């Protein structure tokens, strides 16, 4: 199956910006094993592209409400998901498709160590 056909399949798998389970099931039944693998991968990639995952050390309804407008402005037309990650010390991580932005205490400490190492040389 050619790349543009796969893109068409992905496009028809969504209705009103939401994954249509019935269509996906129909497509999955018709595809060969090799193409099915590609289809699943392409769906996952598309999902990653349309969602932004915000990882926080702790999540509260108040915090989500407070930042909702700002995040919608930064990531327009993207679905925003919140994830709890206690390892993130005083920080936040945004994951969008294959790009990750991280601002945390741990990251700052690592950068200071790397900076000191560079100037030591």
């Amino acid at each position, binding site marked *: 199956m050619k790349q543009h056909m796969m893109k068409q399949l992905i496009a028809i798998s969504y209705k009103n910006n939401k994954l249509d389970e019935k269509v996906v099931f129909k497509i999955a039944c018709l595809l060969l094993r090799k193409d099915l693998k590609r289809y699943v*991968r392409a769906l996952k990639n598309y999902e990653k592209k349309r969602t932004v995952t915000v990882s926080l050390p702790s999540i509260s309804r108040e915090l989500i409400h407070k930042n909702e407008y700002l995040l919608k402005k930064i990531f327009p037309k993207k679905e925003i998901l919140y994830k709890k990650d206690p390892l993130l010390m005083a920080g936040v991580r945004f994951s969008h498709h*294959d*790009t*990750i*932005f*991280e*601002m945390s205490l741990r*990251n700052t400490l690592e*950068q200071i160590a790397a*900076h000191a190492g560079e100037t030591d040389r």
Partner: protein
Amino acid sequence: MITTEDIIAKLEKRIHSFNDSGKKLNVGTVMKNTDGVITADGLSDVAMGEIVTFENGNSGVVLNLDEDTVSIILLGSQENLKEGNRVETTGKLLSINVSNEYLGRTINPLGNPLDGKPDIKGEKDMPLERIAPGVVEREPVNTPVKTGIKAIDAMIPIGRGQRELIIGDRGLGKTAIAIDTIINQRIQEKGHKRVICIYVAIGQKRSTVAQIVNKLKEEKALPYTIIVVADASDPASFQYLAPYAGCAIAEYFMEKGEDVLIVYDDLTKHAWAYRQLSLVLRRPAGREAYPGDVFYLHSRLLERAVKLNKEGHGSITALPIIETQAGDISAYIPTNVISITDGQIFLEADLFNSGIRPAINVGNSVSRVGGSAQTGGMKSVAGKMRLELAQYQELAAFAQFGSELDKETLTRLERGKRTIEIFKQAQYHPVAESLQIAIIWTVSNGHLDDIPLEEIQRFEEEFSQYLQTRHKKLLEDLGSGTKLTEPINQTMEKAVKDFKQLFHG
């Protein structure tokens, strides 16, 4: 003495210059691994030649950018690498952290020591891939690299900044010429800078590399030599990167104003490694299944050999080696490299089998730019001798058919035989330039015409000893780099006559 206040002030200064900008990562997922070439999706911001790191701690270099995927060559073991593993970009291009501590060490193309000695502390990151210096930064070759091999120094001279190919079948002494040249660099000539040597072993047996390292150690050549090894058991990616790593190290020393000699042993195996990678990367195959850019693979490497014109700046002299099959120099890779380099030293199996070692075929060998780097003394004796040798080869071909020859032809044939005899030289026995000039002068002026052919080697050996013990001043004059003057010629004449009396007596 450093006080506590100084340390605090320094730390404060460092912290002030620190910029906390957050961390941006570009990630991908491993899709498949085909013979050390990883296909990954994601990594939309990755650059060609960028280093990426895998979840298992391994690293790789990006070699192909496709529409939805990237192809990465692994720099390490494939163990524990699974489909679905995360890959991260680093934002760094492949480089090697070089310092003076590399001298005398045996390393892999990533700069990790292979000699069991402690880790090497780097000083400067040198990129493996780099654009060669431009026309404005270069100057013509004008300083010789003395190989210590009579046939080369006299007839195919090499200059600093030159690229001279060593080509021939297997087992004819290509590596021997390169190693002899490295050994000869331990003698630092007056008025010339030292030469740092880098030997890059590509796809060779470990036992061969070990032998070379031991020989260099024995000959006290290791302190100024660096050995970069990607042996036959290393992945193709290492063999592909090895010459570029060697060149990056050479550039580090060149930037410090040093003269560097780099030996690529050999570029045939380098082309094989690149062919393997290209086929796995599914790049279109061309002639002999090599990819279309196999010429560029070698041209961009050898273009980095240079003589810089800036005051105090150095040079890189490259001695690439190519192995031919049954003496066929018109094959794909040999013709490519011949056209890139500034000349070639062609070794022939027939000469080797007839006992002429080094088995250099003077007719097919050439140095396009080295002549201007040859010293005055050598020039004045070598020009005449080369002409005589060419005449001998022509006459020898005709003499095979004729039975009766005139006296002059016979004299030329006999002198030609003696000239060839003096070019025979044992391995690991480089000869000083002054002694080379002395013996070439002797044969060119007909002083060996009355010495039987089988006595020539003994004559040369004893004559060299005689000059070293009784005519030190004459040797100094011969090695001074100036043209041979009439008084020097007269002293030579007298020295040869005196020695011949001793020799015959």
